[in-house]
């Protein structure tokens, strides 16, 4: 299994979109740094993410959410909150990490 990491805002770059195009069913995707903006309710990308949750395990890094003034209550239902320790576990649990830089 693969862990995909996305660190850019979906408004700014195409990395999340491309990650979703190539990730296989059951893969994990971690949104961190400016990537967290994709995990929030009320944005233009909410529908895309809700659809993606049917195929992938999606995680978001809480320290990056909080730094940017967002609240975990506003994270789309089904996206799992995690921290750096959880990030480490995700890396350990998956065979390979693929960064969408």
């Amino acid at each position, binding site marked *: 299994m693969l862990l995909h*990491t996305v*660190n850019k805002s979906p408004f700014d770059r195409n990395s999340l979109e491309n990650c979703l195009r190539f990730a296989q069913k059951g893969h994990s995707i971690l949104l*961190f*740094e*400016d990537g967290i903006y994709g995990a929030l309710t009320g944005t233009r990308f909410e529908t895309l993410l809700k659809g993606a949750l049917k195929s992938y395990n999606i995680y978001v890094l809480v*320290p990056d959410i909080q730094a940017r003034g967002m609240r975990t209550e506003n994270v789309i239902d089904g996206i799992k909150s995690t*921290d*750096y*320790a959880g*990030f*480490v*576990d995700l*890396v*350990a649990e998956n065979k*390979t*990490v693929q*960064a969408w*830089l």
Partner: protein
Amino acid sequence: MKFAILVNEGPYQHQASDSAYQFTQAALKKGHEIFRVFFYHDGVNNASRLTVPPQDDRHIVNRWSELAKAHNLDLVVCIAAAQRRGMLDENEAKRNGKDANNIAEGFRISGLGQLIEAGIQSERLVVFGD
């Protein structure tokens, strides 16, 4: 488990080095081994001993140096990327006829083979960049 870390961006300009630091610290806390942290592209600028950030901000370079000291980390700066960007150790400065060097304690300059080796020897490679 044995991890390797690749940092592709310089300090302050992008979050990559901060994220890599937090990740490395969390991995060590969980008892994982960090085989190597490799600094490539502008990532080499994380190794400058001449940085003087504002007093109320984090000191990215010192933070890496201290983590390396505490956990005996291998912090490797890519020589080719470093030369292009003016990051030199004493040997490199001499070899290139430069009158100063600027590498911080705890970092060493070496070749790209060290990155490949890290990929082979470690069970996981995690890349932080722009």
